[in-house]
């Protein structure tokens, strides 16, 4: 295949990625957008194979079959609640692939004893470092969300100093490789090893509640790593697609930080949720009121305006189907039900939207925080299902609270607020929630799914 044709077809692939991502912007066109982007990927793969000509097909077909089988099996069997860690895992492997490509290219030139041009060796170091950080960082994010290790931040004295020092040594080794004339194997191994360690250390101190931001950022890294690989092997489609993902990930991370009213630096280095701080107002001496499903069913059956505030607890209990069933029941009785979605509810932006979509809740019934927040005041009943930090009024008033300043859903302003909760444990951010002690709040203790099922059968009998 002539080089110009290869380039032209790569351009087609790049355009398909751009159009595909653009269509992911609205729910109505999103699915087709994803398919268009997938078509771009197929074009890129086939053009590459055609361009290579006579090659070792055993390796290629073997790799493609094994990789696709593993990826598809995971993708088709994963539960919707586990989506954040799934994305983290897949993303890690993407970063790992970029790292391996950079490593293979380096080792080839090293073995040949060739001098590597300065620009090439520089981008090679970048693809190694960013790829390795993405790989190990994503695996730690996966382990935290899958609860293979604690979701709380892991911190120790001088942590920032250690990380900073490690980073400097890493930059030093990479710099050594860049200025030296012949490739050096020692610094190469050093760079890969230290970058892998750095990925682990950077994600360790970040709490589970902040994991969405981290995954989005790691997603951005894997894009940049792919772009750097594109520099190494001089391939435009890698650079374009990698840069698109790189900036998309950063923008998405920023959107999430903005929703929490925190800076990216605070998320990455703040060790948010490390200690259980009660803030100024301690929960001691305050009591909560609990309500039974039977009593609550009567209130709910005659409610006109109902707002459901879902959170990660709903995901854990797999209670989204029961939530919808209850909502249908209320609507059949003449009430109106809306779902209020906090931008960082769950462990991934839009996590709740996906879960409720799975339960066949039409997406036009889901309302963003800004759209629905003024309506709580004339809402009869607000159901807080497994949400905690996103409805904590302390963020409005208590300057000593770690979540002070985070915009919240005004669940406390509803005429009646019922919180579905397993126990009185603090939320993911480790903060005591004032809402539970308010006059208009009742607690419905137990598994959210069981409580909702009970409510459904009780409301039917009213």
């Amino acid at each position: 295949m002539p080089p110009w044709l290869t380039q032209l077809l790569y351009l087609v692939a790049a355009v398909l990625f751009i159009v595909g991502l653009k269509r992911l912007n609205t729910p109505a066109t999103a699915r087709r957008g994803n398919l268009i982007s997938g078509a771009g990927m197929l074009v890129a793969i086939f053009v590459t194979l055609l361009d290579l000509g006579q090659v070792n097909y055993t390796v290629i077909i073997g790799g493609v079959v094994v990789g696709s089988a593993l990826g598809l099996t995971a993708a088709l069997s994963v539960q919707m609640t586990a989506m954040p860690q799934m994305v983290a895992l897949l993303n890690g492997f993407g970063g790992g692939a970029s790292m391996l490509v950079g490593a293979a290219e380096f080792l080839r030139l090293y073995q040949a004893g060739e001098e590597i041009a300065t620009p090439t060796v520089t981008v090679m170091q970048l693809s190694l470092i960013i790829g390795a950080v993405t790989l190990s960082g994503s695996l730690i994010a996966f382990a935290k969300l899958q609860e293979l290790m604690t979701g709380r931040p892991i911190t120790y004295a001088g942590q920032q100093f250690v990380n900073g020092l490690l980073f400097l040594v890493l930059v030093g080794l990479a710099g050594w490789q860049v200025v030296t004339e012949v490739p050096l194997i020692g610094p190469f191994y050093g760079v890969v090893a230290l970058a892998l360690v750095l990925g682990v250390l950077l994600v360790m101190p970040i709490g589970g509640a902040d994991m969405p931001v981290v995954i989005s950022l790691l997603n951005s890294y894997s894009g940049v790593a792919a772009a750097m690989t594109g520099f190494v092997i001089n391939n435009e489609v890698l650079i374009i697609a990698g840069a698109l993902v790189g900036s998309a990930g950063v923008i998405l991370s920023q959107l999430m930080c903005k929703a929490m009213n925190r800076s990216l630096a605070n998320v990455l280095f703040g060790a948010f949720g490390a200690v259980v701080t009660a803030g100024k107002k301690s929960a001691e001496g305050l009591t909560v009121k609990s309500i039974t499903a039977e009593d609550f069913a009567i209130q709910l059956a005659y409610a006109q305006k109902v707002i459901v505030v879902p959170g990660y607890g709903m995901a854990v209990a797999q209670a989204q189907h029961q939530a919808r069933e209850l909502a249908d029941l209320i609507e059949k009785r003449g009430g109106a039900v809306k779902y209020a979605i906090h931008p960082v509810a769950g462990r991934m932006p839009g996590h709740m939207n996906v879960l409720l979509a799975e339960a066949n809740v039409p997406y036009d019934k889901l309302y963003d925080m800004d759209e629905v927040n003024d309506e709580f005041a004339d809402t009869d009943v607000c159901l807080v299902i497994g949400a905690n930090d996103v409805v904590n009024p302390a963020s409005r008033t208590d300057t000593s609270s770690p979540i002070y300043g985070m915009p919240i859903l005004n669940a406390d302003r509803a005429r009646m607020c019922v919180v579905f909760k397993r126990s009185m444990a603090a939320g993911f951010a480790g903060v005591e929630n004032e809402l539970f002690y308010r006059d208009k709040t009742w607690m419905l203790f137990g598994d959210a799914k069981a409580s909702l099922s009970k409510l459904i059968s009780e409301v039917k009998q009213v």
Partner: protein
Amino acid sequence: MSTEALIIAIVIFTLSTFLGVELIGRVPPTLHTPLMSGANAVSGITIVGALIIAAGDRGWISTYLGFVAIVFAMMNVAGGYAVTDRMLAMFKTKETEKKQ
């Protein structure tokens, strides 16, 4: 890589970065998860690099590392697109639900 080639690559990288910002800027929160997952699938484009490394006549180290890179990248590509499609297939309005 020559200096000119590097400059052209930097130009492409920079413009694509700005394009990415424009593309993502106004996405509703509803679609943040599928978008993240869809963008993640695109980052599997590194499969192109993996194929070139593994298939080219570059010695056994490249072939071995390239093979592992293909497996990793294909997991990212196949898994990423499949999981995104699964999520988006569930997004319905009242109207589309009635049609079905």
